[in-house]
């Protein structure tokens, strides 16, 4: 009997368990998944929780429910990966041997990286919304907040779901409008990038929306520290931005487990072959989702595309065949723009998002880079798709793992 061990039962780990159980012969392979938490969170819902659009119940479920029969599930913290011995050590001291290891431990916020962020203002007038705790605390704050300077801030790139902070700013605009207090709130969007998004085409479209919604932009802001006594953030060029309420996305880092095991880069991400998802250092270790260092968006939709390709490659690896170099960095995401509208973008390692439609070439119905109601419905439907199709590794209709260039107007990225 041989062992496949999956570390992490988030979006990626759960999908891999569901794919592999269908493909592997039970008599030859045993599949085990380990995660520290009982709860599986629907992280995209953390964007909506602060605005009372989703309830806490809608964004969490018991993780075990999504692990298929025939897969061993262990709820425990992982202490160490020992690649030379093909072994993983859990917090209790239990050791698990593996023939193939899949690392799917994701990324998480690290507010300690910036002086003053995690200090006296934390969860008083400084919040994150990338964690369940943060999003919920922020919801309670917003319910009673009377207005002032709201600063939406990104600490450093890369972050998972890189558009989420922008969506937060758009939703805040519409939230305060509906509460009849938009005139009491000044919204500023502060980013280390030179524009609203990482890709120039989308940046133009998004910049237009920021202006339209009267949201100020501060770009190229590399934060040095937070001054919680005087309520301001300060960057290395000594630019200061004052806030009454700071909603920040702290540095995102891979789990400390990766660092302890000596497998990560500066941000604890695993150097991974970008087309095959095999780790660069060890041929029987694969990585997927937010835990990798791939230059693709860290998003559930990306992990979904990766899971199909990784499943194929694991089967090839088992048979001793060469791996398929297929992953092209395909990303797509809905961008919630407030007032019940959203836009959709689709891009990969080499192509920029431009106008077009998706997923049916030439027909739509979802419009890329155009704000409309249908995209908003798509974004809202994503929660259902996530719990009922995506985690279970079911094919999402019309969407393929590599990007289709039909019906879209692209520009090559140089």
């Amino acid at each position, binding site marked *: 009997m041989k062992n496949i061990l999956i570390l992490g039962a988030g979006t990626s780990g759960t999908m891999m368990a569901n794919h592999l159980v269908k493909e592997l012969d039970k008599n030859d392979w045993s599949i085990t998944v380990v995660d520290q938490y009982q709860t599986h969170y629907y992280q995209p819902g953390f964007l909506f929780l602060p605005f009372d659009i989703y309830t806490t119940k809608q964004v969490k479920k018991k993780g075990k429910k999504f692990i298929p029969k025939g897969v061993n599930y262990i709820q425990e913290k992982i202490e160490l990966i020992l690649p030379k011995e093909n072994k993983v050590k859990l917090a209790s001291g239990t050791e698990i041997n593996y023939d193939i290891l899949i690392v799917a431990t994701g990324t998480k916020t690290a507010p300690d990286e910036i002086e003053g962020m995690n200090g006296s203002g934390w969860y008083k007038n400084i919040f994150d919304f990338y964690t369940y705790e943060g999003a919920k605390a922020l919801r309670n704050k917003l319910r009673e907040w009377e207005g002032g300077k709201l600063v939406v801030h990104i600490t*450093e*790139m*890369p972050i998972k779901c*890189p558009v989420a902070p922008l969506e937060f700013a758009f939703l805040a605009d519409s939230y305060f409008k509906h509460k009849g207090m938009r005139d009491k709130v000044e919204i500023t969007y502060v980013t*280390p*990038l*030179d524009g609203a998004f*990482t*890709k120039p085409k989308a940046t133009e479209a998004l910049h237009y929306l920021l202006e339209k919604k009267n949201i100020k932009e501060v770009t*190229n802001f*590399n934060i*040095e520290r937070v001054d919680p006594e005087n309520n301001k953030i300060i960057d*290395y*060029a000594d630019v200061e931005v004052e806030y009454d309420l700071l909603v920040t996305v702290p540095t995102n880092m891979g789990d400390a487990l990766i660092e302890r095991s000596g497998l990560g880069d*500066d*941000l604890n991400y695993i150097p991974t072959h970008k087309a095959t998802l095999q780790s660069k250092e060890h041929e029987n270790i694969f990585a997927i989702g937010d835990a990798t260092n791939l*230059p*693709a*968006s860290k998003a559930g939709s990306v992990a979904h595309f990766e899971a199909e390709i990784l499943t194929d490659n694991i089967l090839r690896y088992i048979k001793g065949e060469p791996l398929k170099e297929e992953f092209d960095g395909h*990303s797509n995401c809905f961008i919630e723009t407030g007032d019940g509208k959203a836009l959709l973008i689709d891009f990969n390692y080499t192509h920029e998002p431009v106008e077009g439609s998706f997923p049916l070439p030439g027909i739509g119905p979802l419009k890329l880079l155009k704000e409309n109601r249908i995209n908003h419905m798509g974004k809202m439907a994503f929660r259902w798709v996530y719990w009922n199709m995506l985690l279970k590794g079911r094919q999402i209709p019309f969407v393929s793992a590599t990007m289709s260039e039909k019906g879209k107007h692209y520009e090559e990225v*140089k």
Partner: protein
Amino acid sequence: MKKIIANKEIDVNEEGYLTDFNQWDREVGECIAGDCDIKLTDRHWEVIDYLHDRHHKDEPLSIRGIKKSGVIDVKEFYNLFPGGPLKKATLIAGIPKPKSCI
């Protein structure tokens, strides 16, 4: 696109970044620095050497990387290359502008 820098014809992109590192030399670097109102000192060159080293090893450049480099701290980096230090330093060093991660 071609541009005359230090009396040499150099290939650059729309933003002025060199597209062929082989065309770069110290004189070219000094000339670009002059356009940015920066006079290169030994300290600047140490940083540029570090950037070249990272670039040739295919390692991505970031402010975090600078922080951990042991060559310079971020504050001094900003003082040497005022404005956008990574953007300016890579422009002068003749290497591509760091891609802001996705």
